[in-house]
């Protein structure tokens, strides 16, 4: 039985199926169920056009960070960030010192010393690894980040996703001024 939708809260860490990105060469299943291979996306388009296609792809159960509440059961999908356990080789990366000191804009360090994450290893959230997963592919919710930590995630996602917030902020400011009886 998958995780209960009522537990799918922004900032929660859930364990579930996270796919490896489909790439080429790609193995796919023809109408008879035989495995075939296509070298490029152009080959695929020429062969399959717009038809849905069964492909041979890999997935892995991982922890993921939920980016929004997903408590409405009728809504199937939820947007998450991938969480990876840290391997010794990751610490050898030139990027590591900034990750460990929480200064890196694209990776967030989750140290093993913080129990509320309920992660078995020191881990990294990759802000460039945003994905949509089906809620029924989430096994359980365990642990999570607090509001302060999620605010830090938000700040970094603004840059990664190229969110243009200035017009929104300006409009909100005008609304506040109007509600206060001040003409903008």
């Amino acid at each position, binding site marked *: 039985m998958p995780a209960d939708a009522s537990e799918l809260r922004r900032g929660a860490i859930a364990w579930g199926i996270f796919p490896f990105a489909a790439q080429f060469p790609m193995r796919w299943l023809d109408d008879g169920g035989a495995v075939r291979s296509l070298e490029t996306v152009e080959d695929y388009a020429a062969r399959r056009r717009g038809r849905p296609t069964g492909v041979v792809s890999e997935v892995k159960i991982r922890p993921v960070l939920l980016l929004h509440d997903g408590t409405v059961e009728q809504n199937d999908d939820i947007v998450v960030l991938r969480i990876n*356990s840290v391997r010794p080789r990751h610490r050898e990366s030139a*990027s590591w010192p900034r990750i460990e000191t929480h200064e*890196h804009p694209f990776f967030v360090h989750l140290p093993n010393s913080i129990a509320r994450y309920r992660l*078995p*290893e020191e881990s990294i959230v990759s802000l460039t690894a945003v994905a949509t997963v089906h809620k029924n592919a989430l096994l*359980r919710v*365990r642990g999570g980040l607090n509001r302060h930590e999620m605010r830090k995630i938000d700040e970094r996602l603004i840059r990664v996703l190229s969110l243009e917030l200035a017009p929104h902020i300006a409009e909100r400011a005008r609304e506040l001024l109007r509600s206060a009886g001040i003409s903008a």
Partner: protein
Amino acid sequence: MTDSIIDITAEEIRLPERARKALAHGSRVRISRYGQPSAYVLGGEQYALVAPLLDLMEQGVHVPHELLMSGADIALARDLAEDRDTTAGEEAVIEEMLAERDADPDAGRRV
């Protein structure tokens, strides 16, 4: 060029010989303070390459995040995306969740 730059003379900063040689060969110099990177020194040619990017950022122009990723960042992102290893700790968590389900099908739903 950016106007948020100040000029100092070579007499005001003493770089060791190995740093001067590195700069002459196009390498970058990282200055650490208490074990943490505190400043970077680039040669003139390298600075000319990144100055337009710094100008854009100071002007508030959006710069795609990929342009801000170093080679090490991109390599690490790829490594993490392709990471297929499973640790004993991860296996133990999955076992624990399955055991919770076996003991009480609703256990994990109330975590």
